[in-house]
């Protein structure tokens, strides 16, 4: 998740870090897609303001001019595009956002289920619409479900193997944690993770992570995890 490669004591230093961004995937025809986006934005104005956004243009066959128009259209809606995905060098141009290579396997989206076209509103809680607040989930998070929330997440119930919670704040699980949880996902090193029973596939805070093999001594325990001096620290609570 995080690669920190700090060069030895020179004035010029650099490091690589991974960040979380929203991926927008426009569809042809673009004009209709923009109209859809406008409808959505009218319900959540300012949702993308100041947030990093990447546009996935795979399958669109855009020319440079088309791409510039799309970026400008999004810019008018306060959506600042930091990069483009899913295209080759054809769209490499200093006037356009830089091209990104596709992510390995992690692609954070609000939900992994395709929204049902018949449902205008998601029947699941839409955590992402309430900025920087805490979200209470009072049912188990099932395998295959992916939850992204800006703020803290509290789950009353278990998080199944194959489920995933990504939060910018802390994560509290009042149940067994069998899936993956990523707290402090936008660079918040002060986020914590608590769970009643740890059987996680992966836990991460601010990009520092530990897999199930690295936490074997805490398996089955009630634990608290936080970042201390750049290390993900775990302590059993009882």
């Amino acid at each position, binding site marked *: 998740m995080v690669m920190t490669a700090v060069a030895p004591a020179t004035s010029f230093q650099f490091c690589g870090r991974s960040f979380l961004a929203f991926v927008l995937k426009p569809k042809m025809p673009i004009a209709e897609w923009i109209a859809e986006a406008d409808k959505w934005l009218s319900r959540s104005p300012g949702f993308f303001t100041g947030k990093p956004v990447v546009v996935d243009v795979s399958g669109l066959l855009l020319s440079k001019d088309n791409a510039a128009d799309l970026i400008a259209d999004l810019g008018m809606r306060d959506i600042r595009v930091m990069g483009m995905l899913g295209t080759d060098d054809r769209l490499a141009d200093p006037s356009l956002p830089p091209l990104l290579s596709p992510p390995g396997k992690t692609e954070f989206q609000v939900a992994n289920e395709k929204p*049902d076209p*018949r449902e205008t509103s998601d*029947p699941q809680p839409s955590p992402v619409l309430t900025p920087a607040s805490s979200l209470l989930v009072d*049912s*188990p998070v099932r*395998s*295959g479900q992916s939850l992204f929330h800006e703020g803290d997440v509290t789950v009353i*119930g*278990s998080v199944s193997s*194959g489920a995933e919670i990504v939060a910018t704040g802390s994560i509290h699980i009042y149940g067994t944690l069998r899936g993956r949880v990523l707290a402090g996902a936008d660079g918040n090193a002060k986020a914590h993770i608590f769970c009643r029973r740890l059987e996680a596939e992966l836990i991460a805070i601010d990009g520092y992570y530990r897999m199930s093999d690295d936490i074997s001594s805490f398996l089955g325990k009630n634990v608290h995890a936080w970042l201390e001096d750049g290390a993900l620290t775990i302590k059993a609570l009882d």
Partner: protein
Amino acid sequence: MAQVMVVTSGKGGVGKTTTTAALGAALAQHGQRVVVVDFDVGLRNLDLVMGAERRVVYDLTYVAQGNVKLHQALIRDRRIETLFLLAASQTRDKDSLTEEGVERVIKELRASFDWVICDSPAGIERGATLAMRYADLAVVVTNPEVSSVRDSDRIIGLLDAKTDKAARGERMDKHLLLTRYDPVRAGRGDMLRIEDVMDILSIPLLAVIPESEDVLRASNVGAPVTLSSPKSAPARAYDEAAQRLMGVDKPVSIPNGRNGFLTKLFGRRAA
């Protein structure tokens, strides 16, 4: 009030069709008007297990597309008067069913039956989501092994997200039906224990069906196990499940390896 019940699992081969037939027959034996509907277009099996494979003329696809009337496609069981079958098409492909068509058929079935039991295909694709779409309650069939449990967990997530009931903001009633349970192997640790499965899935337990040759024999002779060997342990477990679905308050029987059947009370709500 008709109840539309989907029998689903995610994973294949865990006993959805067997369960559909056995529960359908058991409910009908208690005098309920029951129709079992096969949603496994292209790989239909329910007609075989119900022993009606030579009597299928029209199927769900014909009715959903409006080509024939519902009563022309319904097949009445020869043993129980109040039990009917609506078969799946074996020749069409899975896209031949539309949401509108299925919704209309389910609505029509609601009007003339107490129970509409939808036998879902395996997987989480179109057929499975159509089978669960208009259900009021779900029976999640699970084997006591990790892959089946994870797939069931996935399906439970979909039941809470992709059904009409979920879209209306209501909570889908879900019941766990554990099949192929072998108390001896569970005791040795070769199989997940009932408690483990309930802990992971967190839905109430409807029944535990013991692993038994009676189930296999029943499928092969084309009769639901509750009809072919009503005294057998699986048949009794299915019958209890049917009564529980009808609102009879009964503890769940847990098979125990030594003296056949030991009745033990399990919490109705899982932790």
